[in-house]
């Protein structure tokens, strides 16, 4: 794994599970679990941008929120710079929150419609009693300027802004407390393509300036290639492949990753005509009732007997490139 390389882990996730109970009846009897995040072990290295990709409903956002303890994990641990978040509660947890933030997908629902921009961006300072009065006004103005908004607009309400501007307000709010780790939960998928580039560039600049570590959740594979250092591919609550951008894009090993990448269009008509697409059959199985054996066996083009009996584990089959697939194991180790 990466840590052998002398890199320092910012976030260490070990066997993290988040199950949402399915209840029935008056007494809320638990009749099943939706396994949104199912046994994820992952390290996020200081200063990197880790992309988390997967189709809708595979648990990407839940994983991001569980890491931040916005959802209480069902089991497993999240060590944030050495501190176990699940062991904290109340005041201790709230003060830890200053060091990790989240940027949301939908800039329309992520800002309180009844608060002015100044109040939204200034709230973190008030919560953590960092600044007030004129100092607060100054810090808010600085933040707005940093994300490319005119501080004079601070007295306006969110509904008076465009989607891109609103996303910048959300970014300013996340930056206010000088966090070291930011979960970006599909921060650009609700924006126009032209605005997407602006916001991504802003996020990159801020990363350099404030030494940020990102967990970048997305389903836009072309964007991942542009901004991430490593990628984790998620399928039905589990990470199926993890590696550097080059490894994943040039040498994908898991059939799901291969299928995902084959769906990315190439901006060259000749190549686009010739390239082979892997079309996955069927839908994502229900996370409340995952298949036995490998989660992917219902749709996998190369599944064999073992895939229906055993569950593959994420193993470093290639240097710094982990894959959870029996077919890949046989291919690479024999």
């Amino acid at each position, binding site marked *: 794994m990466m840590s052998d390389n002398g890199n320092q882990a910012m976030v260490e996730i070990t066997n993290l599970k988040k199950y949402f109970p399915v209840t029935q009846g008056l007494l809320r009897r638990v009749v099943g679990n939706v396994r949104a995040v199912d046994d994820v072990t992952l390290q996020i290295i200081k200063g990197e941008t880790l992309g988390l990709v997967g189709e809708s409903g595979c648990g990407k956002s839940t994983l991001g929120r569980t890491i931040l303890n916005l959802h209480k994990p069902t089991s497993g641990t999240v060590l944030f710079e050495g501190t176990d978040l699940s062991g904290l509660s109340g005041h201790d947890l709230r003060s830890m929150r200053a060091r990790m933030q989240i940027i949301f997908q939908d800039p329309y629902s992520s800002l309180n419609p009844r608060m002015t921009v100044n109040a939204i961006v200034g709230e*973190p300072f008030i919560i953590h009693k960092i600044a007030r009065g004129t100092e607060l006004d100054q810090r808010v103005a600085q933040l707005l300027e940093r994300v490319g908004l005119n501080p004079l607009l601070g007295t306006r309400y969110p509904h008076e802004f465009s989607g891109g501007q609103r996303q910048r307000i959300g970014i300013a709010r996340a930056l206010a407390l000088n966090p070291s780790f930011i979960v970006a939960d599909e921060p650009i998928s609700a924006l126009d393509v032209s605005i997407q580039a602006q916001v991504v560039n802003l996020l990159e600049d801020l990363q350099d300036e404030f030494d940020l570590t990102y967990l970048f959740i997305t389903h836009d594979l072309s964007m991942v290639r542009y901004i991430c250092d490593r990628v984790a591919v998620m399928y039905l609550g589990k990470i199926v492949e993890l590696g550097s951008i080059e490894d994943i894009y040039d040498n994908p090993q898991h059939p799901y990753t291969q299928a995902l990448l084959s769906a990315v269009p190439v901006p060259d008509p000749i190549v686009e005509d010739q390239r082979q697409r892997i079309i996955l059959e069927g839908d994502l199985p229900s996370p409340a009732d995952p298949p036995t054996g490998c989660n992917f066996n219902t749709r996998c083009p190369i599944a064999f007997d073992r895939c229906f009996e055993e569950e593959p584990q994420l193993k470093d089959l290639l240097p710094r490139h982990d894959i959870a697939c029996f077919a890949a194991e046989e291919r690479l180790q024999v």
Partner: protein
Amino acid sequence: MTVEVRGEQLGPTEKIILDADILERPRISMVRDTLNRLLKNKVATVSAIYIIALAVAAIIAPLITPYGRDEPNFQSTRETPSAEHFFGSDKLGRDIFTRIIFGSRVSLGVAFIGSFTAMLIGVTYGAISGYFGGWVDDLMMRFVDLMFGFPTLLFIILMMLIIPPNSSTGLIMVGLFVALGLVSWLNVARLVRGQFLSMREKEFVEAAVALGASPFRIMSRHLLPNTIGPIVIWLTLSIPGLILVESTLSFIGLGVKPPVPSWGGMLAEGWRAMRTLPHLALAPGIAITLTMIAFNFFGDGLRDALDPMMRGRE
């Protein structure tokens, strides 16, 4: 290519300028915006003026009424409406107009304070239930269901029977506030609980949690301000309901005691003479009806005006 906007044919250039105009909409506060839209609604505006006028009249009653509240005049009993007695006079020669104005003190006072009491209880209860959810919510809402099962009027009557029959008007009024407040908080509790439950899932609330905001802060700064609209509307619709309940109680003799006038009490005195002196019952009857209609129209108008989806279009 031309575009038709608000009945006018516009060329492409004008269309673009128009779009820019919409993007650069002048900056106005939510309150101002709501007020602007409310004032465009004629019926709601007239209703609001009526309610304000009535409230002012109730407060400054002695200054604008031509006679004393209980002042008898045996020279002019049972008079029909005239320039001297706008709404006529009763069997003791008391001026009906004067008594209607004074009666509004009881009716409006009980309805306003009763509704505000209910709002305080209901908002607090609903906020806690909706914010914490889970078994807390289950338990608290089952209690509300239980209370709903109890006949409202019967509950108020039982409450009013606790107060000794010869109590002062003040004590009876307090009894009315408490009784009405205790029965009408249920709806607002359910309303606030539902709003909180759905709003808790919004990303701006999650953002506040991620920033480390305390539950109290999340409730008071994020959830409650976004529930103000429905609460205000509930209030304007609850007040006429309580005016009616107060009138009912006075009508059956459980409200304030004569000679203190209340609309329900006056109705109770007047209805026996409906055939010969219809104005005795009609005056308080019309007062109750008009006030209820005004509050209902005002509440409707306010609901439309507070809806953010109505912003910028009329």
